[in-house]
């Protein structure tokens, strides 16, 4: 018998690669959005720091903007640097 695959529809689920389930700032799940957004996913992305901590982009930006002198990670107090991978 000859069998050939003509077409295939694959279904995949994507998740953020994060070391935690929730954002340390707003305590919302990473799968959901930050409190200011209404749609999760592309509209409310995550960002990673060099210190390995992950936050909603909106949350960490708000935090950094509120800091006058130093830009520290709210979790580990190291200087915050974005990890662009």
């Amino acid at each position, binding site marked *: *018998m*000859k069998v050939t695959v003509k077409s*295939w*529809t694959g279904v995949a*689920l*994507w*998740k*953020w690669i*994060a070391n935690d389930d929730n954002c340390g700032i707003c305590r919302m799940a990473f799968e959901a959005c930050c409190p200011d957004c209404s749609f999760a996913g592309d509209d409310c992305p995550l960002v990673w720091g060099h210190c390995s901590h992950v936050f909603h982009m909106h949350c960490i930006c708000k935090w950094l903007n509120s800091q006058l002198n130093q830009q520290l990670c709210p979790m580990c107090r190291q200087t915050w640097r974005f990890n662009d991978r």
Partner: protein
Amino acid sequence: MSLRPQRIVFDDVWGCLRQTVEKVLKLNSVRRDDWNSSFTDVYSICVAFPDPLADRLYSETKLFLENHVKSQLDEFNCYMNDMNDSESGENQLLHKYYSAWKNYSQGLEYLNYLYLYLNQQHIKKQKVSEAEILYGNGTTPLTISQEQMEIGELGLDIWRLLMIQNLGDILVKQILQGIERDRVDNCLTSKDIATIHGVIHSFVMVQDYKKKGNLQLYESLFEGKMLEASGNYFTSQASKLLQNCSVSQYMQEVIRILEEENVRAHKFFHISSIQKLKKECEDRMITDHKNFLYSECKEMVSNDKRDDLRNLYVLLKPIVDGLKELIQILLEQIKNEGAESIMNLKGENIHIQFVENMLQVHQKYENLIVETFKNDPLFLSALDKACASVINSKLSDGKTTCRSAELVAKYCDNLLKKSKSTECEIETKLSKSITIFKYIEDKDVYQKFYSRMLAKRLIHDQSVNMELEEVMINKLKQACGYEFTNKLHRMYTDIGISMDLNNKFNQHLKNVNDELSINLAIKVLQAGAWPLGPQTNITFAVPQEFEQPIRKFEAFYNTSFSGRKLSWLHHLCAGELKVSLAKKSYLITMQTYQMAMLLLFENCDTMICKEVREVLQLNNDNFQKHLQSLVDQKLLLIDTEKIEDSSVLSLNLEFTNKRTKFKITASMQKESPQQEIEQTITQVDEDRKLYLQAAIVRIMKARKVLKHNALIQEILSQSKVCFAPSIPMIKKCIESLIDKQYIERTANSSDEYSYVA
């Protein structure tokens, strides 16, 4: 002439003036010169030297007016004595009075001009200002009447005191007779009408100058008696009608009488009486016989007698609480009819029958309300109440929970899946389903079912039209807010994004001059938005035919997005296989696991079950389920009844099917629908508990301390959009929050909670 104050002889000047006054009052012609000189006379008296004689002029004028009116009254008295017993004279008195009044009031108006100086200079000074009367800190009306009035007002007052006080009762009696005649045989001439109208209004006009209580005479002398007489007339009329009319005829008659009375009121009375007369008529003819009107209510509603109902509405609308009973009857009727229409539904299409039957009932009564009850909000809310109660009622056997939410969701699914109707038709049907949806209390149940069905449609490409999917989501959003459709919307956008992604991926392949061995379409879903149930990680060895394309796609995906991990949901994947057998080749659509199984038989014709399972690394449940469907299709043959590890599978080389293109579906639907429904219900229950707990924490955080009942009320009002929680469930949630130390009972009161920060 000079304007300087002069010494005058009052009697001389008054003697002259008096002649003019008499002429004016009798409406005889007055020469211009006389008028002018009289005008000057008034002035010179008022400014006379050494003492102004205005007061004397005033009292002389008053006396003159009184005598004038008295003489006219005497005339009337004589006339009445003459006419004492004769019938024909009746109306004549009214006519006579009316023409006397017309002349007198006209003459008085002119006279008022003549005395302009006196009015303005002498009398205005004494008058209490308007503001003082309005705000009540001025002198009481009693003292005003003792003061001097403007001549016009004085004349009216004299007319009232002398003429109307004496003649009033007899005038009123005759007016009422006139009106009675108008009611009974409608034979008044236009002159009669003008007279009656004029006489009635003379009662108003003699006090018209007053700022306050200008209708006092009219009301006490005339209106009360008129209403009483009218009331008697209405009562007798009503009882006459009741004796030989049906409800329907009676209503028609009453409406006619009401209209006539309205015309009559405008014809004769002061506007202030129109409402009162209407009220009297309603009281006597409707309120007094309310029960008679209600007696056939039920029948009218059930037999859809629209004309009668319309009349009934018109009549009962102005009566306090008049419509209550009618509304109640209508509500019961809708309830019964609705319940009947969705009772004992059987067969495959319960969901269609349910929605469409219910819509029919709703439509029918909505139509009735628009047409006969003028879209009265009271009736519309009764319709809503009735529909909600029918739709949310538990089915008669008491065990099963209400299935409405599920049925409506299924109805929508059905429309969006495979309807043959045109786009336009589907959209109207969807809109109508929203009408029913709005009545559902358990909207969250609907949401669960709808999102599951939507997920299936989207993943398996079953939607008729993506635009319609969006339209429907927007409709739901309009009805329930964006929170409700958030996930649905995210699912919808995921599919759009995936389509883009596929295009980009294909473009990318072209750019790098690569080609895939299979035709690939990928759907990438975001976790959290899709109702996919718990993610049990099913181990599965992906056949090598897929492995390479998948890896390429993953690589592409990772360059497009960072920080994301893809996991494949093979149980949701499907594809098309071309199977070439000896005689014919077939295009078969099937599930990934089944594809994998068939691919194993490419190079050999028989295999042992255990072998297959180990190669695929599938767990037993999935393996059995999917293999069974291939066996059922007779693509594979098995040598035992049941699938066992040692069973031998062989390829059916003699396989034939009439179609060359078909689909193997069984395995997807293996999960029994009942099981699925139960699962959904338990999920909904879990979600509700979370929702309630969140609501309680929110409320308590805002209020700090709250009584039990107040808290329950708040929760009920907050959750209304989504579902109607049961009190025991709320209590359980409160308990669990106390256990988790979010809130605590306050020390001094047993039914009060406080928020623990």
